[in-house]
Each structure stands twice: as C-alpha cells, then as structure tokens.
C-alpha cells in the first residue's frame, strides 16, 4: 500500500513511545551504570571502568551457559519447526473438528510457565509420574534429577510440548490462506504430494515461518522459569541457561556490576540476531 509522508503521525505513536521508553530506557540506563561500578549498597559504589566486561568475557561459567543456550535454542528450532509444519498439515481444514483441534492445541500455550515446569516435574518423576514410570517400565534407567542427559532431554521435551503448538497454529493459519484454486491446478497437473508441499505450500508458509522462527528463537533464548522449576538448573549446572545464570548472579549473589555487564552482552547478542531476522522479514515483504 502506498503510504503518505506525514510527520504528524508521531502524535499517534507518542503514547506507545512514552510508555515503552519509561519501561525500557530508564532500566537500560541503570544497567549501563551498574556495569561500570562495583556496588556495595545504596550510595556506596566504586567506579571500575570496563573491568566487569573483561571479567565476564573470560568467565568460563558464563561462556559455558552461553554455549549451552545456543545448543538448546538450535535444538528447539530444529525439532519444533518441522514438527509444527507436520502437525499443521495434518489438521482438518475446517468445521467443528478444525476449531476443536485449534482449542486443544492452544492449551499448553496458556498455562503459566511455572505450572508448565510443575506439570513436567510431576509427569517425569519415576515414582509418581506417568512418563518417568513408563520409561522405567521399558527397562530404561531414567532419572532426570540425577542424570545430565536425561535432564537435558526432559527440558527439551517439555519445551517441545509447550511450544510446538504455537508453530503449528501459525503454520495452520498460513495454510488456510492458500486459495483452493492452487490445489485444483496441482491436481490437474497430477502433481505429487511432495511437489504440492514443496512448490505450493512451503513458499506460502515463508512469512509465517519467519515469525515462528523469530518468536521461538527469542523465547527459547530467554527461557528461565520452566527449567528452573523442573530441574533447578541441575544436575550440576547442566541445564542452567543464560537467564538463570544471570538471575542467580543479580538477585542471589547481589553481584550487580558483573550481572549488569553480562546483561548488556546478552542484550547485544539478542539485538544482533533479531536485527538479522528483522531485516530478513522486511526484505521478504519488499520482494512481494
């Protein structure tokens, strides 16, 4: 659509600008201030320059949790995106069955994150949980509180359970927007199932998929509550992701300077990746 140049539009944006600036800029400035000081208490702070940054960059615990975070986010995307597309393709096209599927699929999305953690904490236990009990009955030694790999798989499974429906719902709405005529043309050409998917459905899903990838990346990158409730970050620190390391540092140890420096680096990483995604989206829009 042709847009009109009009700077008065700023008046319409102003409330949003002020509201978000209040909640975003003031805390951001504070974090930057923290990051260059060593803070002991109210009014007692020493200027330390970039020391925190230097320390954080060479801190192995942080590097480990960053690497763990990237592996986790990567795994989340690799599993959830294809699975979500698959589920969307299987959903009934319309009618009462369609809406029923929609509602049932959306349930995990609407559960508070700490409850999601609680559900899996119970569900995966070997003694009182169906899942843990079932796996143990199969003769596999499974214990998510004791074994690193089991803990990892449980956190991953929980995230897949929690968020695949979002990908599926996004893809479903993308599929619904494809005109019936496209399928009819494919039928006349006797196109195979795969060809229909590859050349009709997948290209049409592109823009929804970008949104799905973006949302899933952002949310998995800041995952905190669910693994915290489920495993408490353990065993050891095997499921301690970035957010949890950060929160422990800032609230638990009251290590403000280091946590702030770390926060800023964290924010820069997210900003860069999001910018790349955003540029990709606007470019995809332009090509249309």
């Amino acid at each position, binding site marked *: 659509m042709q847009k009109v140049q009009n*700077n008065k539009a700023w008046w319409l944006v102003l409330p949003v600008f002020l509201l978000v600036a209040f909640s975003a800029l003031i*805390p951001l400035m504070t974090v930057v201030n923290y990051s260059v000081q060593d803070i002991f208490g109210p009014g007692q702070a020493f200027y330390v320059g970039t020391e925190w940054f230097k320390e954080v960059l060479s801190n192995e615990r942080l590097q480990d949790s960053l690497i763990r975070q990237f592996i986790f986010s990567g795994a989340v995307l690799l599993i959830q995106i294809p699975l979500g597309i698959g589920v969307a393709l299987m959903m009934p096209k319309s009618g009462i069955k369609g809406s029923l599927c*929609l509602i049932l699929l*959306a349930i995990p999305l609407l559960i508070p994150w700490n409850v999601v953690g609680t559900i899996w904490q119970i569900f995966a236990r070997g003694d009182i949980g169906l899942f843990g009990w079932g796996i143990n009955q199969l003769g596999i030694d499974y214990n998510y509180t004791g074994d690193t790999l089991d803990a990892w798989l449980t956190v991953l499974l929980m995230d897949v359970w929690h968020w695949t429906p979002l990908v599926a719902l996004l893809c479903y709405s993308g599929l619904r927007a494809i005109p019936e005529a496209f399928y009819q043309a494919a039928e006349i050409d006797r196109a195979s199932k795969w060809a229909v998917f590859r050349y009709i459905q997948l290209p049409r899903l592109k823009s929804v998929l970008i949104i799905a990838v973006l949302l899933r990346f952002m949310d998995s990158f800041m995952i905190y509550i669910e693994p915290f409730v489920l495993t408490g970050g353990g065993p050891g620190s095997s499921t301690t992701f970035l957010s949890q390391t950060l929160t422990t540092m800032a609230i638990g140890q009251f290590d403000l300077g280091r946590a702030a420096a770390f926060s800023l680096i964290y924010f820069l990483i997210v900003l860069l990746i999001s910018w790349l995604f955003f540029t990709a989206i606007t470019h995809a829009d332009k090509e249309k």
Partner: protein
Amino acid sequence: MRQTRSKNVGITLFILLLLTPIYWLLNMSFKTNQEILGGLTLWPQNFTLDNYAVIFTDPSWYSGYINSMIYVSINVVITLLVALPAAYAFSRYKFLGDKHLFFWLLSNRMAPPAVFLLPFFQLYSSIGLFDTHIAVALAHCLFNVPLAVWILEGFMSGVPREYDEMAYIDGYSFPKFFVKVFLPMIRSGIGVTAFFAFMFSWVELLLARTLTSVDAQPIGAIMTRTIGASGIDWGVLAAAGSLTIIPGLLVIWFVRNHVAKGFALGRV
C-alpha cells in the same frame, strides 16, 4: 480417502500426547497425598475435592488468582488503548524514523526480562508503585505493546485506504471514523491481539513476582508455598496448577473463530 484417515490418526495421536501431561495433573489434583505417594494409579481411587477446598476457602490462596486476573486485565486494556493509534500510524503513514522506531519497539519484545529485574524493582519502588497491580500491568506492557503494534499493523494494512478517504468525504472526524468505522473492520485483529496480550501476561512470572510482595502477588508466586517443612503438598499444588488453565481456556473459546485468521498475525 485413506490419506485423510491417516492424517486424522496422526493429529489425534499428537493431541492425545499433548493432553496426557495435563490429564496427569488433573488426575493428581483429585487424589489424596497418601494415594499420590503410595503408588501409581491411572485414575483417582479415592476421589476427593479436598485439594480444591483448600484453595477456595483460604483467602491467601484464591486472592492470587484475583490478583493475576486484575493485572492481566489492566494490561490488556492499556495495551490495546495505546497500540491501536500507533498501529494505525505505522500502517498508514511514513514519518521520521518510523522503521527504526518499529524495530526499537520490537527489540523490547526480544529483551530478556531477567536483564531488567533489579532496575525494574527499583524504578517502581521509587515511584511508589511497588506491590500494586498497575506496576505489573505497566511492566508487562514492555513486551506486550510491541507485539500488539506488530499484529495490529498487519491487520490494518489489510484494510484499503479508500475506506479512510471515503469517511472523510462523508464528513467523519478522525476520532469518529476510527471508532465507528475502522475498529469494527479489524474486529478479529483486535480479538487476536487481546488474546496474545492476555496469554503473555498470564503466563509471565519473573517480573510479576519481582514487582509484588503481598497485595498484588500472582498465583504463580503463591504456588511455591506448597513446599513446606513436611515436603511438597502435591495434591494442592496440582489443584492450583489445574485452576490456572481455566482462564486461558475461556479466552481461547471466545476468540476461536478469529484465531485461524489471526494467528498468522494478519501478515499472510
């Protein structure tokens, strides 16, 4: 036809797997603690509502639900009120710095809340809003408003400009046009936006917990109380968890017809 059937089997299986953990939670909420810890039972042997009774008779329990509902509702209202005009501006006009403003808004949706916890706490304490519903509602705006603008902008771009121009010719003032003509046209967009705002505010705990202590404490924070000296009270924990699912179910029921269209954020 066989293909349709295998599809149906597939989707049914997926949904069953999806619902199993939730069934397990429900199942547990109707059991006594002795039964829960005594062994694995697929359905409650001694069906009991005691766990729910604990929650509904103790004000410090059920007030958690009320607190959560209050701040979520305030948040949805604020989000819609400020996001609607802004989204209109983004969808209709080019203005100085529009693209950068848009990205800056979105980048707040991306900022991990953990980064802002302590400054948030101090900011809201210093203006005297700590432990109020409005504080949590405002804090949640940080990630809900950008998302709302993004979704609404997509819907509004789908409405041709001609409608705006026609309304002006008919002598409508801008506010009148916006409320009487424009908003009804993007009804489903508003519904979906409200759904998303509700969802992300309802499920968030980190900020809500940091900004409250007693008067506005969300249910998620109260649930940690079930861990007492004698171990975890599994039954009550399960009952409290089950109850948090209900508001979400109600909301999705109301917007179900808009969802198929709107989940694509109006951008397909």
